[in-house]
């Protein structure tokens, strides 16, 4: 695994990283829809995907090694599709922005398997914006590429800088908030 693309990132934001393959939304429309409706009208899409291809059928290396104890490590199960600095290493938490920053109302989403119960959950990778990038230790700088797609599939691309809808578009760190059970 390479180190994160986002070390010392000056800016970044909402990146979608969804789960299993068959997202069919139109790029621009999906982006617009997410910007207008933060979060979770998209949930049915994720559920549908989870149903199409059960995650337990074949586990990725990340899923095989995922742990449930320490959210400040890249192999924490919810970070299956994250790319950035973990806010828990920066004065925030797994769903909490550090002081001086604000959560992006737009988020990219992933579906991660919790090894504790074997269930998949929809995760909103909400970035915290408005300050220069948190310089946390390298262990907190994550870039997992499971099901990661090129930019022409933006809802699943983790290279896109997307901090629309915050006062300042500067990227600070990333959170992984549970939205609900995926299946």
């Amino acid at each position: 695994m390479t180190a994160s693309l986002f070390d010392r990132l000056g800016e970044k934001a909402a990146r979608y990283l969804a789960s299993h393959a068959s997202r069919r939304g139109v790029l621009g429309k999906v982006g617009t829809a997410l910007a207008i409706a933060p979060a979770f009208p998209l949930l049915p899409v994720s559920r549908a995907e989870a149903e199409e291809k059960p995650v337990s059928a074949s586990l990725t290396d990340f899923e095989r090694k995922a742990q449930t104890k320490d959210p400040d490590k890249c192999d924490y199960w919810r970070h299956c599709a994250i790319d950035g600095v973990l806010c828990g290493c920066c004065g925030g938490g797994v769903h909490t922005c550090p002081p001086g920053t604000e959560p992006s109302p737009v988020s990219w989403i992933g579906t991660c398997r919790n090894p504790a119960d074997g269930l998949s959950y929809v995760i909103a990778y909400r970035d915290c914006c408005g300050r220069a990038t948190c310089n946390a230790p390298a262990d907190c700088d994550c870039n997992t590429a499971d099901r990661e797609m090129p930019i022409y599939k933006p809802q699943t691309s983790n290279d896109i800088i997307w901090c629309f809808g915050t006062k300042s578009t500067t990227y600070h760190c990333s959170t992984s908030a549970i939205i609900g059970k995926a299946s």
Partner: protein
Amino acid sequence: MNWRSMKFLLSSTFCVSLAMTASRAHAAPTSSPVLQAEVSDTATLPPIGPHWFIPSASEETYQIYDIDKGKVLGTIPATMLANIVIAPDKKNFYVAETIWSRSDHGTRQDLLQVYDAKTLSLTKEIELPPRALAVFAAQDFAVSSDNKWGFIFNMSPATSVSLVDLKAGKVAQTVDIPGCALVYPWKTGGFSRLCGNGSLTNVAFDGGSPTVTHTKPFFDSNNDPVFEQAIVDQKTGQAIFISYTGKVYTTVLGPDPKISAPWSLQEAAGLPAVGTGVQELAWRPGGQQPFAWNAAKGELFVLMHPGNHWSHKTEGSQGWVFNVAEKKLLRRIDLPQPASGIAASPDNDALLYATGHRDGPITVINSSTGDVIKTIPARVGAMSIAPGL
């Protein structure tokens, strides 16, 4: 006085006495002229050479290297959010950049900056609509081969392309193309874009109204997408799209591009074709800039690593060399250290430039023999540009 101070005093005294001795020794007999006062000046660059290599460095600049000399010739300011292009006439460097008036806040400014290739003077700044911002997405920006138009991918988050009149120094128009991203320039008269359904959208444009056409989907965008880092040879318009599993699709870009049946990098190497299994260990393409092209010989260079599907960002431990016309593997080169970026010189005996993820050296490799010619100490990353002939 402690030991450290004493040591300093002793060494200072020694240096002074040594200097005095030297001065006495040389003062009398020499007839060489006394060194004159110097005037500070500024260097300029020679014409862009075939062995120039311009990699990103510390995510803030691109450094111009003369590989033969192993030295930096100059610096082009461009962050990891910027895109950089050498003008077709090699007289300018174009940088599409985004900055904020107060560093991490304030007014956002999107600019197409024009640097003179001899002086590196910033000669022009063209204001742009909000560009698409992504980490080192080189295919966000292209310049037409006649040097008249810049094509810049926008995302607001609706997607469009700015058509920039480079001579007039302004955005002539913006084309909305929902569902598609990036820009792949034609030989002349337009550009194509990759779309979420696995097709190309083609935009014919030469100053008038753009005409948009679409191909049928030709790759499986849900399970085996093509890398965004496709090769485009602007002299011929040939494009090479390579998928995560190593399927190669070639075409000549234009209003109605005919896309070849795919062939497999691994099959060309005498190995089984590779699938999308998440536990299917095989040689796969990967890295931040995994492909390079040498037009003189029609050779494609690919960073390859052993991995499962979705390991497309993993650095390459080998560089594979292909003759694309013959769909044939020519050789596999073991890299001295894993590389995340590769580039090639444009001349007949291509030099390969392999670089790591960030802050590393440049490994210069003879593409014909696979021999490491030299390793240039540097602090550069995976993304780079190399001039054409």
